[in-house]
């Protein structure tokens, strides 16, 4: 999108007010504020939220950090809940109970637990039914709110509290579920994978497309968690950059069925660069575990090649 102006975008009023209780160095709020900045100033929105860190930290009675209307229902049903809100909008519009010119946008946020796992059915149903809404997953790769338990988004070998590293364990056994591709296979109008780097242009453009594309849209946003990933909080932007430069977290979009890479590293970095800065992978660097890193690299390469093929590269 031509005309992206960092200064203008950053000067838009915050829709998630300061004073919430999320951790310092948390990726979720950085990413969510970036998504909300893509709403055109003056446009109204209803924000949905699955149970998780974001919910319990931003709407603790009697305080709310949300400038727009907001609804939290439960852990597993953010998709269905917002589909009800969006349907109510169409019903009230049709029956003249909302002014004709009053536009609302519908955006719901869930962590990977609420999205990949317990809320998967609810998300799939909402996407399939074609509601005009955006589902944003802030993927921090574990159930962080309950204390860093593995999810189907957790990378292989990660040390979590339900896949602890030990004498007989190298961390999580399985590789990650590829949720972005699964939602793309729902053939919804818009799916994108993103994170925040440098000037926030990628996340801004994709968020704007997701919000202003008619019909269901899905954004999968990598959102590092300092507690679960164990990194220096000041390193968060560097970690996101390493995630895309190692092709661990490729940046792409699927716009009306058209797969497109939105970032191709000039030089693809080895996966060690991404793993080394995170305490959850510390054991991979112990002598004798070189084969684990090699296996991790192999999986990243295989998925990257697959994505290049899908993007006609």
């Amino acid at each position, binding site marked *: 999108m031509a005309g992206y102006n960092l200064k203008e975008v950053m000067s838009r009023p915050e829709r998630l007010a300061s004073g919430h209780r999320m951790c310092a160095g948390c990726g979720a709020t950085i990413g969510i504020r970036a998504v909300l900045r893509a709403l055109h100033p003056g446009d*109204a929105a*209803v924000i*949905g939220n699955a149970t998780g860190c974001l*919910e*319990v930290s931003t*709407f*603790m*009675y*009697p305080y*709310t950090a*949300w*400038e*727009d*209307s*907001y*609804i*939290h*229902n*439960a852990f*597993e*049903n953010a*998709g*269905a*809940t*917002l*589909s*009800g*809100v969006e*349907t*109510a*909008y*169409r*019903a*009230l519009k*049709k*029956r003249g*109970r*909302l*002014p004709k010119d*009053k536009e*609302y946008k519908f955006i719901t946020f869930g962590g990977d637990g609420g999205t990949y796992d317990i809320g998967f*059915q*609810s998300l*799939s*149903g909402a996407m*399939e*039914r074609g509601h005009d809404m955006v589902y944003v997953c802030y993927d921090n790769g574990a159930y962080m709110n309950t204390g860093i338990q593995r999810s189907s988004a957790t990378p292989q070998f990660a040390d979590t509290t339900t896949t602890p590293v030990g004498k007989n364990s190298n961390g999580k056994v399985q590789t990650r579920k590829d949720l972005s591709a699964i939602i793309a296979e729902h053939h919804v109008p818009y799916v994108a994978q993103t994170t925040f780097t440098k000037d926030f242009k990628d996340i801004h453009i994709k968020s704007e497309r997701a919000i202003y594309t008619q019909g269901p849209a899905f954004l999968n946003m990598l959102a590092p968690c300092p507690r679960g990933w164990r990194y220096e909080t000041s390193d968060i932007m560097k970690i996101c950059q390493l995630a895309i430069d190692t092709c661990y977290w490729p940046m792409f979009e699927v716009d009306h069925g058209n797969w497109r890479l939105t970032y191709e590293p000039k030089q693809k970095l080895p996966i060690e660069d991404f793993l080394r800065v995170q305490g959850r992978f510390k054991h991979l660097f112990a002598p004798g575990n070189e084969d684990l890193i090699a296996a991790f690299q192999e999986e990243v390469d295989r998925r990257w090649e697959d994505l290049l093929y899908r993007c006609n590269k």
Partner: protein
Amino acid sequence: MSRKDRMSGNEAVAFAIRQVNPDVMPAFPITPSTEIPQMVSTYIANGEMDTEFIPVESEHSSMSAAIGSEAAGARSMTATSSCGLAFMWEELLVAASNRLPVVLTLVNRTLSGPININCDHSDGMGARDTGWIQIYAENNQEAYDNYIQAFPIAEDKRVHLPVMVCQDGFITSHAVENILVEEDEDVKEFVGEYHPEEFLLNPGKPVSVGPYAVSAYSMEAKYNQELAMEASKEVIAEVAQKFRDKFGRGFTFFEEYRTEDADYIMLIMGSAAGTAKEAVDELRDAGVKAGVLKLRVFRPFPEDEIAKALRGCKAVAIMDRCESYNGNGGPLSSEVCAALYRNEVFIKTVSYVYGLAGRDFTVDSAKKVFSQLEEAAKGVKIKQHTYVGLRTKS
């Protein structure tokens, strides 16, 4: 003007839904309530109503979506049965605690297992402590009438609670009866328009719904919810009176059938009340002073009213179409006994379980229960928690 029509219970409720024409209806099929969303979809397809129907992928999502749409400011409802209600259990609590006046039409069916599609009240009773008002129907007419009354009760500012309108699976939902239906405009006028005070789609007045609350606030929220449930008694009575004034039929918390001078009363809910009344008529002809108290409103529980109504009799049979698996009788039994004790009404009580998973409850079964009440009144000890109509010995 009322007019006569022949309809099944499901048809009667679907007909009422068309007349109310709610804003949003998410639903997922489950026997024996499936016909309701089917009929509503057909009305919509034929342009006879314009509710936004959401064909969700599960009952959990039907209640989740109803919560979303109701919170957004739209009058919302759904229909379900049995496992469908069990699946949305968590959401029932969310609807009630967010004080959202969602209406659910429940076609009562047993819970698994064994999996079985026939009637008992284990689904509704399983949800008895979720904060929903529960109204039970004996027949197709009451299923129709109760649905129409649900919205004015739920949406009243003193209440703001969801309402579950229950009818017996197959016995009521699928059997065809002659009923009186009202004109569309009369029903619409009775139900009125929905104007919530706070809602998500209120331009210029954003609101946050569904907070996390620490212990310093949570208990007060729950207490206020209980106060609303207590306050709903007054509203249920007002709406029932208004309905009687306008359409000329109905009761408030229960129907008393030949109880004025009764020595023996059967307290029962749902379609089996009709069978019980038949037994009472036969017993009255034989000189036995029998009567029926048919409970219409189970939540809020009309404790004092029930105790007062039973005060004059010698013995009462408390009939649960549900097992609590607690060794102590079904939920109706526990609550009625507590009501009598607290009101210092010390009559004989005998608890029965009947009709589980569609087991027939016949006039003869009811008469057998009454004969045991006669024994109980004479001081004979009758076994509590007795199963009626069991093939093996109870």
